[in-house]
């Protein structure tokens, strides 16, 4: 289980004078759930964008299953990395089913001619796509809403739908950017189950999260990004015990909105410290 799916080497992203991501090396192995945490503005989303080709990294390379990826989003998805967005980016005026069907784009190839001629091949491909999409909707529990417009779904369901859309591209690695942001505790727990279920389908997961309990429960490994640099990486225990992490989170309070997120984090850290055995079964593979 140690074949690497994703290997980022020395990834650096500069915006003018600002270095948002600084020489990050990062690996995700097959079958792993890896957490990426860090204070707001640490560069986590920017790092995701570098991985998926939305940004062209100033330096460094990203490879998937051994091949270096070109920094073009559609080619990255084609290769097998799918993602969700921190601020939900569904196709708001398409139905739930259509959203997932768009996710199937890279796994189907019917072009304009076959759409116009409507041969048997086209019908078969459409039918199969729809079947696959419905399977995914059942998997996330939205099959009964297939004909609703995405914009009319409640927030939590929109996040789920975004995951289903990403999974429709049959990825080997799924990147989730704050999948529980704005969710209530029940929804968060449901998402936790969902992420495990996704891993059990053989898809490696890399997720950015602010909910510490969630991320430590789920992740086989956690990496901490602070000011664009990877500070620590290891199992939940290792990361929680690291003083620099505590300092990064608590020692240097950042301006903005420390309130809720931070309180939750402290609480989570305490809970974890009290009962370390409750954290998820990890592979115990510190790096």
């Amino acid at each position: 289980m140690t074949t690497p799916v994703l290997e980022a080497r020395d990834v650096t992203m500069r915006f003018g004078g600002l270095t948002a991501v600084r020489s990050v090396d990062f690996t995700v192995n097959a079958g792993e759930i890896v957490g990426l945490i860090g204070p707001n503005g640490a560069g986590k989303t920017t790092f995701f964008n570098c991985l998926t080709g939305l940004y062209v990294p100033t330096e460094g390379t990203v490879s998937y299953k051994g091949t270096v990826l070109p920094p073009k989003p559609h080619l990255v998805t084609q290769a097998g990395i799918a993602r969700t967005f921190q601020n939900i980016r569904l196709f708001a005026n398409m139905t739930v089913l259509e959203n997932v069907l768009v996710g199937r784009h890279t796994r189907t190839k019917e072009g304009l001619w076959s759409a116009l001629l409507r041969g048997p091949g086209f019908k078969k491909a459409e039918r199969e796509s729809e079947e696959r999409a419905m399977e995914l909707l059942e998997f996330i529990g939205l099959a009964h809403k297939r004909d609703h417009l995405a914009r009319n779904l409640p927030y939590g369901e929109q996040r789920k739908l975004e995951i289903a859309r990403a999974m429709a591209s049959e990825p080997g690695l799924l990147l989730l950017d704050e999948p529980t942001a704005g969710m209530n505790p029940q929804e968060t727990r449901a998402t936790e189950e969902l992420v495990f279920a996704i891993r059990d389908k053989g898809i490696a997961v890399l997720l950015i999260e602010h909910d510490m309990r969630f991320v430590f429960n789920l992740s086989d490994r956690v990496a901490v990004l602070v000011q664009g640099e990877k500070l620590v990486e290891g199992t939940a225990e290792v990361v929680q015990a690291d003083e620099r992490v505590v300092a990064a989170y608590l020692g240097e309070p950042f301006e903005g909105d420390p309130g809720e997120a931070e309180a939750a984090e402290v609480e989570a850290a305490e809970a974890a410290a009290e009962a370390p055995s409750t954290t998820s079964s990890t592979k115990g593979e510190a790096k």
Partner: protein
Amino acid sequence: MTETTKTPAPDATPAPPAPRGLVPLPLAAARALLLGGGIATAASAFLAWTWTSEFPGDLTITGYPGGLQWLTFTAGLLTTLYALAAYGIRGLGWLLPARNNAPLVLNALGGFAVTWFTVIAISAELGGVVNLEPGGWIAAVASLLPVLGAFALPQEHAGEGTKETLKAYIAKPERIAAPQAVAPWVQRAVITVVTIIGLGVFTYGIDTEYGELFVGYLFVVVFALWALHTAGLLDRFSALVAANRSFTLAMGFAAAIAFPFTQTDDHYANIGVNILIFGTVALGLNIVVGLAGLLDLGYVAFLGVGAYTAALVSGSEFSTISGVHLPFWASALAGAAASLVFGVLIGAPTLRLRGDYLAIVTLGFGEIFRIAVNNMDGQSGPDVTNGPNGIPSIPDLNLFGFNFGQAHDIGGFTLGRFANYYLLMVLIMAIVVLVYTRAADSRIGRSWIAIREDETAATAMGINGFRVKLVAFALGAALAGLAGTVSAHVTYSVVPTPYQFAGSTPPNSAFLLAAVVLGGMGTVAGPLLGAALLYLLPEKLVFLQEKSLLAFGIALILLMRFRPEGIIANRRRQLEFHETGQLDVPKQTTLTDEPAVTKAGA
């Protein structure tokens, strides 16, 4: 007028006051006014309204209505029908499923509008009210009665300020009870009847001989449709259409084919063929704008490329490559292909731009086409297009021995030159409709919509944004080019002037875009309807002349203010613009509950 309804009772009873009308009359009187006024309006059409036949349509004969009087008669009849339906007459209940006031009010207003328009037009054109015969005065008063009656009907929210009250009077109710399920053959019969009526109404509009009649026609049609809409009948009809898609499509084409057989004057077939060309091009543009969300301000250039290509290869003696005379299928393909190549050439560098930049660049390319064609006259540039003189004397088509230039007798009907081309154009439009619907409902169509919705998310889902946009652009161009090849033959000659960004007559890029937006982006029927309207308005309202552009501007602004999704709303768009009243989106529970309104009726 609201004062009377507002007077607060000092010893207010706890029960809410019974709803009252804006005009303080008892319900029985209101209904009587509606019915009596409707009948009187219809009857007044049989009187002489003016003394001279100088006013078009000859409104001088007692006993036989002429021109605009027929419109008043129709509106009066509609008012009467609805008044009877409001009385609960058996067999008319379907006209008023929600038993609301709005259809009554709007029908009454329609009759009032067309009658008063006529009376005012007579007075204005002939110089004073002295030109009105007593019949004219009677008609004016008679058409006012139903309006009074309609506003005397009790209305729930009356009395909360004039604006709210008036709004409440013409509002469509939120929920209208679902109709009973009807047998499929009944559904088809309804669609057939509606198609026939539609063809009749449309034909009447095209055949209007003078501007006043066309304006009156618009009044009657707009108010009648509005009334049907607020009665919930249009929703029911769209549910029928949705349940019988292919049948409706077949009926639509049957009606389109039937049109030239209803015409005795080839001039109207000429209007018909021009509407079809304009509508087909608008539908092509709808792929680019409505589906892929690319704002193309130079689209008419592709029509021009098709037209010029066909003109060059169809054997005109003035063609710079004269001697080449391809058969029509070949010149049509050549026109489409040439447009496609131009589409790719223009699209490849520009489609990497987003939003506004694309609009500006396409605007520029559109103008470059016209200016280049103007200059390729052998003096300022290579001799290709004869410059401003264009390419005249394009021979008529001859398909399988059928000469399009001559009149033919078919089954007792005479089809003139334009009718021939009209029928050819129906075929081309059928192809374009097929291409549009099939492309929209497929992997590539979904990726266009995805790009329009959120380009970043779409590329992150594996869509090669540039490539699918280029496909949309090229496909749209090819369809416009195809329509252009026919238009070259229809008009005998091609010249550069029509292919500009904006002008007072269609087609030009601004009108094409307006047809798409006005009719309803992302639908099939919308751009066709928009094109018909935008072609007919300048054609019929000659007296507006250069002011027609101003009129369009105002009309477009009003439309965008009150119905941004266009006349025919795409389901998505409607939901996008009107957060509330999302009829076809069931609430959390309604999936098990009875179906929402627009889904009902199937």
